[in-house]
């Protein structure tokens, strides 16, 4: 079952924090746990701080990582938002692009199936998410809904230090 939605305030704070860190491009594939963030990316309204964060929807997670990688190669900061079910698709790009060309991209990944009490299709990947990230030495941190800015800073610091794709895991809906 879905975990409790903590509200779009968290999503807005998270996106604002990305803008504060110089992020200019967001791409990804929607997930219901990230619904608040995707809504804001699609329709930022009069939120001037979000105006500088361009959003490009992608058909699949590997393409999203590809788009963000191209922007990073060009000197921009780009982020991918996605569900953990897309880990398989994107893993090839991470192993045969990002990790060989040293192009770190920030990934915000929802954690469906984290407690074994989600829809059945999330059980296997949900149980192994952290082990998979550890296997490829991708630094990760779980979003603290009470301090999204702090979590974003931690994830970016980890990524910059390791120079590998950093993963900010979203366990509760935002």
């Amino acid at each position, binding site marked *: 079952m879905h975990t409790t939605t903590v509200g779009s305030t968290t999503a807005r704070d998270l996106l604002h924090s990305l803008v504060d860190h110089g992020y200019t491009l967001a791409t990804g594939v929607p997930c219901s746990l990230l619904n608040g963030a995707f809504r804001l990316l699609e329709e930022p309204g009069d939120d001037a701080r979000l105006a500088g964060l361009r959003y490009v929807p992608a058909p*699949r997670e*590997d393409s999203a990582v590809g788009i963000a990688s*191209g922007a990073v190669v*060009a*000197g*921009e900061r780009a982020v991918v938002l996605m569900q953990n079910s897309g880990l398989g698709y994107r893993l*090839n790009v991470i*192993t045969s692009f990002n990790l060989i060309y040293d192009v770190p991209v920030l990934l915000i990944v929802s954690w469906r199936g984290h407690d074994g009490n989600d829809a059945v299709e999330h059980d296997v990947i949900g149980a192994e998410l952290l082990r998979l990230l550890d296997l490829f030495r991708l630094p990760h941190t779980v979003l603290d809904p009470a301090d999204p800015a702090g979590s974003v800073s931690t994830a970016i610091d980890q990524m910059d230090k390791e120079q590998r794709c950093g993963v900010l895991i979203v366990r509760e809906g935002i």
Partner: protein
Amino acid sequence: MPAPLLAPAFELSLSEVVREMLVRHPDALIVSTCGFTSRELFNAADRPENFYLVGSMGMSAPVALGLALARPERTVIALDGDGSLLMNLSVLPLVAASGTRLLHVVVDNGMHESTGGSPPCSAPTSSRWHWRRVTAAPSASRRPPNSVRPN
């Protein structure tokens, strides 16, 4: 009724396409797909504006799109093959809807040449047949095999 499928008027080799592309777009940022395609680009002109993908098959267009979004003042080319495009056909609407002027060049030799010439789709129907069917529909990528023609 679909439009009749016309055979190409002439054949272009990968090296001819690459050479012509470099003549027409000497300042372009080029992201080339893996295998012979990247090797051919390297052999034609190894230049700082080239980004050779040694892996990540199907990713030349998304990576090129990221570059094009970040550098709208530059000409950006995704140099693809039929096999790598078939591996990620969803890039077609992605690029078409992006609002960029990304040039997506697809060289269709009807095979995975770098791994021995196997057809991307089941024999005896070659992928070329599929391409002409696919590109007979209105799209942003009509006639990809002939998107670069000699003058």
